[in-house]
């Protein structure tokens, strides 16, 4: 089974190559077949390998397959090696499985787009890069995948390139993530000079030997890697690109900006967990960033009217939960939440895409409404997704994963009541905005006519994802409630077990609090948006509320802040210096030269007698010098 490993990334890549080179000449059916088929094949191979991996665990705990040596310079010899262990298995599974579903969905969703083959080419390239990212054996290969997904994200956000706004959103996404990537690259340099290698297994074995607990070098390294993760995962302070990234087609938002790429930061941190463990400060910072992000993004989500932006902010917020979990040392919980989140967020985006398409590309949730009966499949799947997002107790998968994180945020070693409280508040807000969105979109009266109903290609993936959003949570149940630990047992091979603080055996209280906050949130939204919408109008009267609303709506003013502090000065500087101030120096030299020769050419009067006079004067001067000296 080991030998098939290379097929997983190569299949989508082959799909990309075929579509990129010959996409023009292929019919739409073939394009869809190649595009979706290649990813689906990968998705089929993954369980085959996965079953082999689980049933006969290799002695080393991982499969690894070296394809070729990328380069060898002195001691620096990164190889193109694929590496599969429990952690990457989870990621590969999620990527290929959800990727395949989204590809199938896209075959229907994009059916009327003129750039059909370009879309699938980019999507395939994305799946390839993402797989490379999670299968990479060394950090350099990981970096290749890391930048590759950034490129694909760029290409797909700007997919409808005729509108310059999309192009700028794409550029913003790429550049902001690039800032993080740059920090990460510096992190790679530090790691290389510390360990003499970039191979992840070697680093992880050498790190505890060479560094002592709490070493400042460990903190620096961890923070640099974290910066990369923060950029890619749209966490504070580099979160501003993700809402704008919604300019891309909905399947793109589902696959890249919800399910997979944005969780690359989570993958990176859990992959390099040993370095983070060596630095409690860095880990603390991870948790704080996560908590702050989930808090800020939650409030922003509350105010958005574009359905995709609501979901985008909710994505930022949910990834904040994952960071929070990573930060407090609940490694498995973070990955678990990643998986569940991938299911329900992909589902939500796909369903939102279907709604948007049905309503003639209407994004504004205030112009939707009453879709409950008109689009039943969409309604039910969206409902399931929302339930999972809001962590509706017991029946939704999201509950199990989020509850675990909340519990660890208090109880795990790195946990602390404040983090827990913010998490709880976040859960409450999540419930509020999710319910708000549900009510505005599906209840009430219809404000826009339905044009186009989704076909089978689109509904089937929705149903499959809805199934997983409901039931995937049962593979990992809380201690006091079944205590079923399939998922964390699997990850135990790679990630350390979460250590609880002493004397924590009251998980039930926390579960009840979480439950209450969710239900409270749902009730609040129900009251404000369904029962008594006039209350909102009343609130809008208040200036303070309106200002707060605008502040949250703009994403806490981060865009404006960056614009005035960083973007504008640089652009101003660049434009002022457009003609290159250094060149002025040389122009000055030429100017002086020209002036000099102009004044000297005045002596060139054409009068022979003047010239002879000059000769005489010259002779006099030379002779006087002779006399003087």
């Amino acid at each position, binding site marked *: 089974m080991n030998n098939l490993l290379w097929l997983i990334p190569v299949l989508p890549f082959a799909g990309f190559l075929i579509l990129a080179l010959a996409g023009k000449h292929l019919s739409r059916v073939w394009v869809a077949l190649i595009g979706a088929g290649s990813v689906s094949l990968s998705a089929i191979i993954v369980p085959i390998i996965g079953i082999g991996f689980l049933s006969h665990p290799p002695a080393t705990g991982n499969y690894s397959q070296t394809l070729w040596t990328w380069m060898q310079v002195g001691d620096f010899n990164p190889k193109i090696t694929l590496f599969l262990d429990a952690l990457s298995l989870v990621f590969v599974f999620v990527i290929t499985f959800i990727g395949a579903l989204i590809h199938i969905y896209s075959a229907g969703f994009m059916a009327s787009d003129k750039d059909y083959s370009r879309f699938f080419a980019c999507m395939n390239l994305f799946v390839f890069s993402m797989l490379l990212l999670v299968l990479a054996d060394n950090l350099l290969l990981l970096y290749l995948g890391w930048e590759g997904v950034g490129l694909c994200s760029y290409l797909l956000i700007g997919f409808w390139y005729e509108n310059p706004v999309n192009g700028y959103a794409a550029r913003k996404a790429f550049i902001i993530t690039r800032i993080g990537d740059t920090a990460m690259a510096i992190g790679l340099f530090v790691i290389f000079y510390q360990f003499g290698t970039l191979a992840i297994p070697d680093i992880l074995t050498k790190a505890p030997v060479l560094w002592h607990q709490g070493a400042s070098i460990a903190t620096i390294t961890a923070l640099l890697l974290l910066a990369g993760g923060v950029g890619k995962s749209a966490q504070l302070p580099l979160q501003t690109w993700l809402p704008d990234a919604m300019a891309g087609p909905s399947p793109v938002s589902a696959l890249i900006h919800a399910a997979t790429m944005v969780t690359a930061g989570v993958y990176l941190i859990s992959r390099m967990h040993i370095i983070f463990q060596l630095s409690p400060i860095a880990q603390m910072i991870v948790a704080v960033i996560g908590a702050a992000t989930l808090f800020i993004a939650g409030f922003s989500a509350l105010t958005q009217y574009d359905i995709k932006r609501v979901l985008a902010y909710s994505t930022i917020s949910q990834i904040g939960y994952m960071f929070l979990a990573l930060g407090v040392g609940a490694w498995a919980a973070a990955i678990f939440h990643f998986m569940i989140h991938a299911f329900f967020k992909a589902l939500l985006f796909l369903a939102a895409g279907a709604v948007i398409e049905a309503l003639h590309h209407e994004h504004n949730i205030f112009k939707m409404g009453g879709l409950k009966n008109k689009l039943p499949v969409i309604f039910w799947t969206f409902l399931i997704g929302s339930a999972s997002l809001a962590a509706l107790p017991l029946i939704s998968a999201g509950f199990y994963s989020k509850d675990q994180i909340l519990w660890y945020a208090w109880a795990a070693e790195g946990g602390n009541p404040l983090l827990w409280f913010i998490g709880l508040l976040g859960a409450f807000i999540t419930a509020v905005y999710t319910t708000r969105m549900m009510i505005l979109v599906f209840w009430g009266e219809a404000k826009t006519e339905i044009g186009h109903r989704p076909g089978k290609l689109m509904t089937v993936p929705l149903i499959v994802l809805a199934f997983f959003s409901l039931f995937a949570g049962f593979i990992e149940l809380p201690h006091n409630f079944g205590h079923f630990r399939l998922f964390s047992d699997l990850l135990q091979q790679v990630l350390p077990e979460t250590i609880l603080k002493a004397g924590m055996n009251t998980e039930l209280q926390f579960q009840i609090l979480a439950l209450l906050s969710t239900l409270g949130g749902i009730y609040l939204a129900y009251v404000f948006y369904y029962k008594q919408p006039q209350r909102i109008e009343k609130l809008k009267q208040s200036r303070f509320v309106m200002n707060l609303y605008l502040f949250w709506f703009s994403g806490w003013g981060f865009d404006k802040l960056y614009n005035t502090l960083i973007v504008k000065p640089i652009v101003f500087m660049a434009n002022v210096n457009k003609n290159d101030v250094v060149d002025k120096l040389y122009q000055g030299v030429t100017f002086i030269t020209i002036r000099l020769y102009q004044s000297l050419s005045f002596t060139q*009067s054409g009068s*022979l007698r003047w010239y*002879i006079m000059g000769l005489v004067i010259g002779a006099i001067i030379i002779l006087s010098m002779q006399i003087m000296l």
Partner: protein
Amino acid sequence: MKSSIEIVMLLAGLLFVLGIAGVIIRKNIIFMLLSVEVMLNASGLAFVAAGSRWAQPDGQVMFIFILAMAAAEVSIGLALILQIYHQHKSLDIDKLKEMKG
């Protein structure tokens, strides 16, 4: 006969300076050419004097070369003067300022 070269050199220098003065003062090209002849002569004199000082023929050889040069120069110069006079109806050097930079 005892002799001193200084006085001859002084004479050559004086003639040379007079030639230069002629070239600068006069506006008529013919006079300028005449003054140039004076200058050439002065340098010839210096050569011959130097040759005689060391009792070597080289000074005279140089004088002969100067002579040849002067002959060529005069023939070309006079031909030019003829042309200039035909074209400009004047021999005023100041009217010929065409190479003004």
